[in-house]
């Protein structure tokens, strides 16, 4: 009475998506217009771009940018972890100090902080170590201590610490309470529990947004140009202040920033993929896998699931 079970694969006509073809046509039109402008508009001055992209001054600026990013992130990550542990401490003094720190450094613009550190000498001309109202043991001239590099490091690093503190707090709080309980039942002290049990597990949550922070930091270093530190943007400005070739030189700087952030983005993807192991059965596809899969299949591709949730408490806006 009933039909025999159908075991052969289903051959159906896939859903068509004419809208996608229309959208593609419109976008291609815009791309063509943009290319046309880039080629025909002489103000782009591509020859100037080509001349300057590997210029000595620019390369030195790139190097300084990378260097400040690294050092400021180290200050930020260590400071942030310490702050978050303080914040979660049962000691009310420590937790309130951390809260006020985070409140202050997240609540004022990093540009203001940079200028503030650079002008510290106007507030305290001498930095000295001693007992308040008592003897002084050592003293330095503030202007000799706060070089542009120190101002950049303090401004970016201390500000970053406040953001990293919140990221690391989220990571610590993501660890199951039973872990702390099991550790204390074994007689482990609070600090040992933190170091051996909680932080290693918090890393999985902390690492992805930290990648975002690094990328964000790389771009934020351009603010350091205001304290006359010869990083990428400052050196670029030095050149165009002399030659008035503003647009081509800003293109040069943008190309370098894009290159560096692209490298970081790829690195971040692989690090996240590494730390995501075990949490989902299949890791997200790499760029090449995704490109190969999607390039020649314009319709009927099942949507790839979002590769990983990226927690960014500040939404990338500073």
């Amino acid at each position, binding site marked *: 009475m009933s039909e025999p079970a159908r075991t052969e694969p289903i051959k159906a006509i896939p859903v068509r998506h004419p809208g996608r073809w229309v959208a593609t046509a419109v976008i291609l039109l815009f791309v063509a217009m943009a290319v046309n402008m880039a080629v025909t508009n002489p103000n782009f001055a591509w020859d100037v771009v080509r001349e300057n992209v590997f210029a000595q001054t620019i390369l030195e600026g790139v190097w300084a940018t990378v260097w400040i990013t690294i050092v400021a992130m180290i200050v930020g990550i260590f400071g942030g972890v310490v702050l978050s542990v303080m914040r979660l401490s049962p000691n009310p003094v420590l937790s309130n100090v951390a809260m006020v720190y985070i409140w202050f450094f997240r609540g004022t613009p990093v540009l203001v902080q940079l200028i503030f550190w650079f002008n510290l000498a106007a507030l305290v001309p001498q930095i000295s170590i001693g007992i308040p109202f008592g003897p002084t043991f050592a003293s330095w001239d503030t202007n000799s201590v706060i070089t542009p590099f120190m101002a950049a490091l303090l401004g970016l690093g201390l500000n970053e610490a406040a953001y990293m503190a919140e990221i690391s707090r989220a990571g610590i709080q993501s660890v199951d309470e039973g*872990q702390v*309980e*099991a550790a*204390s*039942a*074994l*007689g*482990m002290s609070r600090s040992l529990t933190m170091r*051996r049990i909680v932080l290693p*597990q918090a890393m999985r949550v902390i690492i992805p947004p930290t990648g975002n922070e690094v990328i964000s930091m790389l771009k934020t270093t351009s603010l350091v140009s205001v304290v006359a530190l010869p990083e990428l943007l400052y050196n670029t400005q030095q050149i165009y202040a002399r030659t008035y070739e503003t647009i081509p030189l800003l293109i040069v700087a943008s190309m370098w920033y894009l290159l560096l952030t692209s490298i970081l983005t790829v690195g971040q993807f692989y690090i996240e993929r590494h730390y995501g192991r075990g949490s989902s059965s299949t890791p997200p596809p790499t760029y090449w896998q995704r490109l190969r899969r999607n390039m020649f299949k314009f319709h009927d591709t099942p949507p790839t699931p979002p590769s990983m949730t990226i927690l960014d408490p500040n939404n990338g806006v500073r």
Partner: protein
Amino acid sequence: MVRSEGVHKSFGSLQVLRGIDLEVARGEVFCLVGPSGSGKSTFLRCINHLEKIDSGRLSVDGELVGYRQSGDRLYEMRDSDASVKRREIGMVFQRFNLFPHMTVLQNVMEAPVRVRRESTAVVRERALRLLDRVGLTGKADAYPRQLSGGQQQRVAIARALAMEPKLMLFDEPTSALDPELVGEVLDVMRQLAIDGMTMIVVTHEMGFAREVGDSLVFIDDGVVVESGHPRDVLANPRHERTKAFLSKVL
């Protein structure tokens, strides 16, 4: 071994323990039973000071838990001193709470090496022996998530035993397990009882209580309702509340 007199504990306005009196002798298997929310797990956590008691006296081996007595005065214990006391009390949790980023062997070795500062070689040997004892030979290098619930709970028991405790606390050790895995955990506990370990067990396994337990206490609403030898209490409960509870679980 453990002595509790009038122990009270509240969370905010919620009174969880309202005067617990009991005494656990050395080498005894002491079962705590009662409906959920009766306070039995809270009481267990008070014994190793994971929770602080509000009033009454609670002592382990003649020493107060969480406080130091000097003359008539009680001094609150520092966290570091409390953790020294906890080293002598093993605890096994309902949800195992193994450290997921460490292998089975590292889980068992962590506390003796880091807390008691024993040499790795000595601890390693003891840890492997303990894993043999709980029937997990050859699982030393596995990670907790690769094991079944029953295996994880047996690792948790080995981890607690590695600190060579004088008292073991079990907080519903089989409640999170699939029924067919309960037996393997109870077998390990039974062996531990035969070896003379003092054990306080919060459980719903009445069969285990009847067979292995030396004493049983029925707790409801934060007080001890009935106590005695497990066989007597389970066979002839005297209190209405005990009868009502047992009729549901037996």
